């Protein structure tokens, strides 16, 4: 369970963007499996707000790649119905924020039906959306409430941070027979990374150790993985060796990799762009405090969005979200704590 990134990603020569990686996964799986179709606002000819569906409409046609009116609740509800009837729909809500308009269908219907039908019906449904803020997207377009989905049994949740992970996890999502909430990050769509041409899948529930280290474990999510890695490089100069773990999926959740790391480092910092209260950062803290209390040499520490709505003004916006500087200084404090 607890290994550094598989070899394949290091060997890969080819470098593509996070958005392209998602498209490739969809393309490959849609070619393989005719039951997959894709619906959402602007995902047809336009190719998605973030180019996250570029080329799919041209290749698969309007029957399998459908632009929808602005009706998120119905989009999700139709996805559930289609999944029950044997399709494997991908419903792209584009902005994670607007998943709120559809969350009743995801939580009440999609997450429960397999269980309450005694396993008779399956709900193979991917709800895709991009979370996080980027360039003053402001209060209604920057949300990060992925903890809501992790709270609910019956949902799987993927939260990729690299092109490699996007592709491997999306392919897995499209073969999973359960509802999967697949959360990209708006700020990462243009980020490039190595993605092999050969087919690969990334299993759900397997964290990636994005950097190995000895003194402190940093668990970071989504875009914060990149900031944590930058911070780790800077911390190295202070003589602090940080291990950076990206859970990659929130459900199933790979506690083992984190527990193993904390057993080694004795220190845990969680970095999340979401709010702290009842966030994934709380859950990770709880997992360690309930299962590995005696491994800790220092209190757990959380670095999260400060508790205010997402502000438009760049000054506030940048201040509210964890920065590399903040991560460096707070991790350093934890690493040096000898209390």
């Amino acid at each position: 369970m607890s290994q550094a990134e598989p070899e394949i990603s290091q060997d890969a020569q080819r470098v593509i963007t996070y958005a392209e990686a998602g498209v490739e996964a969809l393309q490959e799986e849609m070619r393989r499996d005719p039951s997959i179709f894709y619906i959402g606002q602007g995902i047809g000819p336009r190719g998605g707000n973030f180019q996250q569906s570029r080329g799919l409409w041209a290749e698969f046609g309007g029957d399998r790649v459908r632009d929808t009116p602005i009706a998120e609740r119905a989009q999700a509800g139709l996805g559930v119905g289609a999944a029950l009837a044997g399709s494997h729909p991908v419903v792209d809500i584009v902005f994670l924020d607007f998943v709120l308009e559809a969350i009743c269908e995801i939580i009440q219907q999609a997450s429960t039906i397999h269980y309450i039908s005694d396993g008779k019906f399956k709900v193979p449904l991917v709800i895709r959306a991009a979370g996080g803020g980027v360039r003053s997207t402001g209060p209604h377009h920057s949300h990060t409430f992925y903890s809501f989905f992790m709270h609910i049994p019956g949902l799987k949740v993927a939260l990729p941070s690299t092109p490699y992970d996007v592709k491997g996890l999306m392919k897995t999502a499209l073969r999973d027979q359960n509802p999967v909430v697949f959360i990209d990050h708006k700020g990462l769509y243009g980020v490039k990374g190595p993605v092999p041409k050969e087919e690969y899948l990334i299993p759900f529930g397997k964290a990636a150790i994005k950097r190995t280290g000895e003194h402190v474990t940093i668990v970071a999510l989504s875009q914060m993985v990149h900031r944590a890695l930058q911070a780790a490089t800077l911390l190295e100069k202070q003589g602090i060796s940080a291990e950076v773990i990206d859970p990659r999926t929130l459900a199933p959740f790979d506690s083992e990799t984190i527990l193993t790391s904390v057993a080694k480092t004795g220190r845990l910092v969680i970095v999340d762009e979401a709010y702290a209260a009842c966030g994934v950062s709380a859950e990770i803290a709880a997992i360690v405090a309930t299962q590995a209390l005696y491994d800790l040499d220092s209190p757990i520490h959380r670095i999260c969005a400060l508790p205010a709505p997402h502000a438009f003004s760049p000054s506030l916006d940048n201040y509210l979200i964890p920065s590399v500087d903040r991560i460096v200084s707070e991790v350093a404090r934890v690493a040096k704590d000898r209390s």
Partner: protein
Amino acid sequence: MVKPSKELVLSLYRGMVEIREFEMKAREIFRSGKMPGFIHVYIGEEAIATGICAQLRKDDYVASTHRGHGHAIAKGISARSSMAELMGAIDGCSGGRGGTMHLYEPEVGFLGSNGVVPPGILIATGAALSAKVRKSDQVAVAFFGDGAVNNGAFHEGLNFAATWNLPVIYVCENNLYATEMPFEQATKNTDVASRAAAYKIPGYQVDGNNVLEVYERAGEAVARARRGEGPTLLECRTYRWFGHHEGDAGTSYRAKEEIAKWRELDPVRRLRDKALADSLVTAEEFAQVDRDVEKVINDAAEYALKSPQPDVSTALDHVFSN
């Protein structure tokens, strides 16, 4: 209306009586204190599920509501496994996990009753979309109450189906009340069929207590959908004889005269009287159906009451599928 055949009359009669007797039995068990949860019975409205589902194939889809026992039975879930489900027992169609508002059966295309008011509309629409994308000629039916039509999901669902020309039939069971709220307090436009115009689809008002009329209208709508001509909205006017759920007498917010008037329009008796008057079916033939159904329902009750509760060792099974 075309003259119905004897077989059709008997089969529709049987369908309605089975639902009626199932619900009467469920009430009896509920009152005995043995049934968990809260049941919403369909008595008085049997003509709708029966007339509509008689036009469907086994592989067509139905999505239903909290008041869904009748739809389930009409679509082909057995009385046995329906009743066992109401008991929360393992032989129920949902293994006891779902209960009265969550009957499921893929074998007969029953995409679930529902504890939430409007999602069945969306689920049926989604199934219709799936059929269309798969280039199958299956159709989907959404049953829902008057309480659902002022909800946004109704609007979104019908707009999708109209725009994409999906093979779905929207069946509004307008029984004039949503819990204790009269429909005319929930909306200024109480003519549900007229709302079809907003989506540019056909809409018809149907006497929901006349099974032959429901059957005929359903036939047209299903044929239209099957031909790829898109959705239809059917408003079936009807009435529930009893309270919203067992425990509500249904009499504090509805006038005695109103209840009496609608009881006069009993869909079972109306079909029977008409067929007798037309000398199409004999009293003995009807009586034979009654006796058959009684047996089926008694057997179902016995079966359900004997079926055990799920073992707690299975409590975490089926949270995820493989």
